[in-house]
C-alpha cells in the first residue's frame, strides 16, 4: 500500500524507540479506563487503543518547528509529540497543573510551546485551522509544515472539502493525516462514503494522496517522512490515509452495537503493538526481557503521572472567568 516510499532500515534502536512510545500510549489509555471507572476522569473520553502506530509514526516525521492540529482522540498524538505525561494526566483530572490549565479535559489538549494546537472536538473543525497555521508558516518564509489529524468521519464534512481545495489552491504545507478506523462513531465508512478509496477521492483536488497500513509503525513513519520531505521541498499539501482500527468504543458510553466482536478480535490480532513486538523478536532485535523492561518503564511513568495528577491543585472557583480573553500583553 505504501508503494514508492523509501523504506528506512529497521534497527534495534529504531524498533525499541518506536515500541517504547507506543507502549507509553497504550499504558496511558489503559490507566484512563481505570480512572474513568474510579470517577477521577469524567466527561467524554475517547481512547486510541489500536491506533498507536499512527500517533507515533506520524509524529516521528515532524520537527519541533512543525505544528500539529489534532482531534478529540488525541492523547496518543500529544504523547508522541512530546507533551508532558504529567500535564496530560492532570488535564484528564481537570487540575490546574493540566496541559490546558484543566479547562479543556481529555478532548482539548494544547501545548503552544510544542505548537500542538488541540484537541479540537468538532469533527472537521481543525482542518480550516490547520490551513491558517500553514499559511502563516508559508508567509513567514519558514520551511515548516502543519500536520492535521482527523478521522474518516471528517471526510464527510463540508470543511474537509473546503480545506482540501484551499490548501491545494494556495499550495499550503499541510500534511492531512486521515486516521481511518472505519467508523464515524457508530457509522461504518461504507454507510457514509460514496467513494471508499480516499486517496482517489482527494486527488482531483490536486492533493497528493496515498493509503498506508496504519498498523505498521514503520510504514507510517516512512510515508510521513517522505510526504514531509516533499512538502519542505516546496510541494503542495499531501494526504495520508492511515488504515487503522479502534479497539475500544467510540467513547466510554458506547455499547458497540454496530460491530461484531469477531471483527474487533480479528483486528486485535493485527494490532500495532502485537505485530511490532513479534516482528522485532523474529528479527532478533528485541528480547522478552527488553519488552518486559519497556512495559515496566511505561507503567511506572503512567503511575507517576497519576500520582502527579492526584496531588495537583484544583483551580479556585474565584478564577472561573479567566481565559475568556487574553491575559498576556499583546505583541
Amino acid at each position, binding site marked *: 500500500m505504501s508503494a514508492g516510499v523509501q523504506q528506512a532500515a529497521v534497527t534495534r534502536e529504531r524498533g525499541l524507540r518506536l515500541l517504547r512510545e507506543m507502549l507509553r500510549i497504550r499504558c496511558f489509555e489503559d490507566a484512563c479506563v481505570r480512572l474513568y471507572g474510579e470517577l477521577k476522569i469524567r466527561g467524554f473520553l475517547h481512547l486510541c487503543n489500536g491506533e498507536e502506530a499512527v500517533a507515533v509514526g506520524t509524529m516521528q516525521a515532524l520537527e519541533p518547528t512543525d*505544528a500539529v*492540529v489534532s482531534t478529540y482522540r488525541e492523547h496518543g498524538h500529544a504523547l508522541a509529540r512530546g507533551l508532558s505525561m504529567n500535564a496530560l494526566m492532570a488535564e484528564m483530572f481537570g487540575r490546574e497543573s*493540566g*496541559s*490546558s*490549565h*484543566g*479547562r*479543556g479535559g481529555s478532548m*482539548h489538549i*494544547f*501545548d*503552544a510551546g510544542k505548537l500542538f*494546537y*488541540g*484537541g*479540537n472536538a*468538532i469533527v472537521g*473543525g481543525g*482542518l*480550516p*485551522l*490547520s*490551513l*491558517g*497555521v*500553514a*499559511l*502563516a*508558516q508559508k*508567509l*513567514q518564509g519558514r520551511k515548516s509544515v502543519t500536520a492535521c489529524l482527523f478521522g474518516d468521519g471528517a471526510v464527510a464534512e*463540508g*470543511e474537509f472539502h*473546503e*480545506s482540501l*481545495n*484551499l490548501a491545494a*489552491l494556495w499550495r499550503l504545507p499541510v500534511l492531512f493525516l486521515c486516521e481511518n478506523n472505519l467508523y464515524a462513531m457508530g457509522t461504518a465508512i461504507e454507510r457514509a462514503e460514496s467513494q471508499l478509496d480516499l486517496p482517489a477521492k482527494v486527488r482531483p483536488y490536486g492533493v497528493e494522496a496515498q493509503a498506508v497500513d496504519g498498523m505498521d509503525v514503520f510504514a507510517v513513519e516512512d510515508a510521513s517522512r517522505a510526504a514531509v520531505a516533499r512538502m519542505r521541498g516546496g510541494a503542495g499539501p499531501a494526504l495520508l490515509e492511515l488504515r487503522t482500527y479502534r479497539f475500544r468504543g467510540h467513547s466510554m458510553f458506547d455499547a458497540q452495537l454496530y460491530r461484531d466482536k469477531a471483527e474487533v478480535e480479528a483486528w486485535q490480532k493485527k494490532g500495532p503493538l502485537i505485530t511490532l513486538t513479534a516482528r522485532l523478536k523474529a528479527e532478533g532485535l528485541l528480547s522478552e526481557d527488553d519488552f518486559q523492561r519497556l512495559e515496566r518503564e511505561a507503567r511506572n511513568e503512567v503511575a507517576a503521572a497519576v500520582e502527579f495528577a492526584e496531588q495537583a491543585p484544583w483551580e479556585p472557583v474565584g478564577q472561573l472567568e*479567566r*481565559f*475568556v*480573553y*487574553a*491575559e*498576556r500583553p*499583546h505583541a
Partner: protein
Amino acid sequence: MPELLASGAARAARSAAPQALAAPAHMSYREAAREGLRAALQADARVFLMGEDVGRYGGCYAVTKGLLQEFGPERIRDTPLSESAFVGAGIGAAVAGLRPIVEIMTVNFSLLALDQILNNAATLCHMSGGQVNVPVVIRMATGAGRQLAAQHSHSLEGWYAHIPGLRVVTPATIDDARFMLAAALACPDPVLLFEHIFLYNMEGELSPSLAAVDIDHAAVRRSGRDLVLITYGGSLHKCLAAAEQLAAQGIEAEVLDLRTLRPLDDAAIMAAVRRTHRAVIVDEGWRSGSIAAEVSTRIMEQAFYDLDAPVARVCTVEVPVPYPKHLEDAALPSPERIVQAAQQLMSSGGPP
C-alpha cells in the same frame, strides 16, 4: 463625551498617524474604512486581508478597491466561496503569529463559518488555558433596507455579542470607520467588526487631529435632557434624525452610540439613564433575545430606581425581512417609530 484613547489603540495610533494626516478631511464611510485598511496594511507586515472578491473585484461594497494593486496578491487574498475554510484559516494564521483581517461578504454568509467563529475563535483561548490567543479581525456587512429579502437582510451582531471570547464592534461614524480597525487589530482577542450596508455611502468629515479611537467605550452623539436613545450601527442615524424631529416638538433626546456590543459599556449606559431617566433602545435585530433586551435588562438591574418610565424598545418586527419596500420599511426601525416610542415614553410615568 470624547472618544477615549486606550493604551493599545495609542500604539496603533502612532503608526496610523501619517495616513490620518494625509487623508482628505471629507470622505465617505467606504473611503474611511478603506483608509483604515490601508493604514493597517502599511503599519504592520503581519497584517493581510482575505475574503470573497476583496481583490480583483475590489470588494462587494467597493471598500477594498485598489488594495490588490497597492499591496499585491500575497496580502490581498481572494478566496473561494468557502467561508468555513477561510475564516478558519484566518483563525489559524492569527494563532500562528499573523494579524489577519478576514472579510465575510455579509453577516448572512457568516453562518457558514459559525462553527469556526464560535467553536474556535471564541474558545481556543479558554480551551488551551490561556496559551493560545486569536488576534483575528473578521469584518462583515450587516443590516437590511435594500429590498434584499429574507436571506440577505440579517442583523446578527447582537447574536454574536452573546458569545464570551468574542469582541463585537459596530462603527457607525466616519471616525470609527477609519480608526476602529486599528484598535481591533491591536486587541489580542478575536474582534467581529460589523459595517451596516446603509452607511457605506454616508459622507462626512473626519475629525481633524484624531489619530485613534478605542473599542471599549460608548459615545454620546447628541446631548439631550429628556430621554436617551441607545443604539449602534446603522440605527444611529435613524436615532439622530428622530432626535431632530423630537427637538422640533420640544423633546430633547440624548443619543448614545454603543459602538461596542461586547463588552457593553455599562457605565456609559447607566450614566445616560441617570441623566435622562427615560430610555428607548433602538436595535435592528429582532426584538426577542436581542442586544436591546440585554441592555434593557442591565438598566433594570443597575439603574431601576433612576427610571421615570419603563424602558422602551424599537427593534425589527419578528418576521423574516420581506421583499416589498412598504413591508420592509414597516419591519425595520425608522425615525417615525423611534419618535413615536419617545413620545409615548414622555407621556408615561415620571415624577408627580
